[in-house]
């Protein structure tokens, strides 16, 4: 009897927690389909017009393109660089591999505010103040640990013998990499890059200091917009972003499993 009551309390609490986690996303989703000029409750009629209206606003589609290019550029750096680093870590003896891996996880330890402020200061005192360039640098280094981590995870599940066999049979290191290692770790690499893409696309705390306010990234455009506007347009833009994030998360889950990427 006491046991059953405890179970019941547990289930109620868990449902409340899950409701709490999903509430802000669900409300953005619901509001994005509202038909009214301003956000108000209860929502009287539904439509998809805010999706069209919002994405026609130059500030949103232009900043979405900025974010897209930025994320692709960051992945273009972090992908190959992270892959190479993972290969080195995997082959090195632990005494070398562990410190390298620890250093490569630094972007996860340094708070975003310190990371972006120090880059801002560095960019100003060196005179290299081009906003896209410094955003590119910051995003590449911020997403790097995730690529390294997923590549290491998929290298870890690959038996060493396959590479050694290819090597013994006379293949050059490059051929071993090209025809044995890379095909076997492709899911891990892909998942790492996809996750890195979405992290860069969604990022706001690192971009905030480095961005040029006239050409913001999408999350910053949203942040600026909600300061002065209270229409469902932002909800529609947010809902689109959520859909993109979830699609990529689903892909990552299919390829290697989300848990491996998140650590």
């Amino acid at each position, binding site marked *: 009897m006491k*046991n059953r009551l*405890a179970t019941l309390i*547990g289930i109620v609490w*868990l449902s409340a927690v*899950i409701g*709490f*986690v999903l509430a*802000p*996303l669900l*409300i953005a989703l619901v*509001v994005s389909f509202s038909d009214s000029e301003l956000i108000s*409750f209860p929502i009287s009629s539904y439509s998809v017009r805010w999706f069209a209206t919002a994405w026609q606003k130059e500030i949103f589609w232009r900043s979405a393109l900025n974010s897209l290019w930025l994320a692709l550029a960051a992945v273009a*750096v972090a992908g190959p*660089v992270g892959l*190479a*680093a993972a*290969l*080195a870590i995997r*082959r*090195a003896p632990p005494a070398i591999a562990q410190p*390298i891996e620890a*250093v*490569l996880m*630094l*972007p996860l330890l*340094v*708070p*975003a*505010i*310190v*990371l972006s*402020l*120090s*880059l*801002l*200061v*560095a960019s100003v*005192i*060196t005179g290299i103040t081009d906003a896209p360039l410094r955003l590119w640098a910051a995003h*590449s*280094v911020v997403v*790097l640990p995730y690529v390294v981590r997923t590549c290491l995870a998929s290298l870890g599940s690959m038996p060493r013998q396959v*590479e*050694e066999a290819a*090597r013994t049979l006379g293949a050059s*290191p490059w051929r071993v990499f090209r025809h044995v290692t890379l095909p076997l770790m492709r899911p891990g690499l892909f998942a790492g890059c996809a996750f890195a893409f*979405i992290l860069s696309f*969604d*990022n*706001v705390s690192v971009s905030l*200091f480095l961005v040029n306010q006239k050409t913001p990234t999408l*999350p910053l455009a*949203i*942040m600026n917009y909600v300061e002065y506007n209270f229409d469902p347009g932002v*909800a529609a833009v*947010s809902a689109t*972003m*959520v859909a993109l994030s979830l699609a990529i998360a689903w892909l990552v889950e299919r390829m290697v499993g*989300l*848990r491996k990427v998140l650590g």
Partner: protein
Amino acid sequence: MTSKRIDATESHWLALPALVLIAAFIALPCVGLLLLSLSTGFRPGDGWDALLSGPLGLDHYRRMLGDDFVLGRLGRTLAISAAVTLLTLAMGVPLALACWQTRGPIRNLLVYASVMPLLISIVVSAYGWSVLLGRKGLINETLLSMGLITQPLKLMHSDLGIVIGLTHILLPFMVLSVLAALERIPRALLEAASTLGASRWQTHRLITLPLARAGLRSGVLLVFTLAMCAFVTPAVLGGNGTPVFPMVIYEQFSASFQWAYGAALSILLLVVMMLIVAGFLSVSSPKRAA
């Protein structure tokens, strides 16, 4: 050379590009920030030569430690972080236990729900909360129409709003830390406990949670330090004059152009963070009888 241990030494260089990235965009800028916090003559607009050759001193640190406004904000940030940590514990531990004990689609649902805030841009989450918590938000409108309140509650633009928003985005870190530790516990232990007549609550209190202690510890540290450094969620949900410490740093750079002072404040944030981590670890580490 036999090719048995392939490329053991010849492949170290592969890590070089990654290390160069970290050095160029993390290590050097951080050293620059430290230098800036010590420089007494630096003005915005000066170049790196001015920074390297200018006079150094502890002026900014001295000013900072006598600044009641700064210290007050720091204290309030620590209080908010503590509240967020307690809330993520209360929510995250049962969630992690549930993820660990269920199977199949329910488990997937629970795991997805718990990592959801990590997958969504924090701007989107903050926006969702502002729709819920605002003066004319769903919660206030519902309570007003039910007649439970006569005045809208100040849920947003308050510390409560910041705590709610931060708890939401940091919950996944708690769940993942605890779950990782739980997954290392052999299931046979639980079966043994239930065979011996322990209730579920007793099993958790006496066996599971003590064994998952390392996960609880890392979850608490992660959430607390991330909460201390967060500023985007507090900026949206806390409104103008957001009382968190990172916002004070932000203002030195965006509004008052006191860069060196802002740099010193950033270093203070890092130092406080490290002290808390060290203090917490020394208090909470299990004392091993050798």
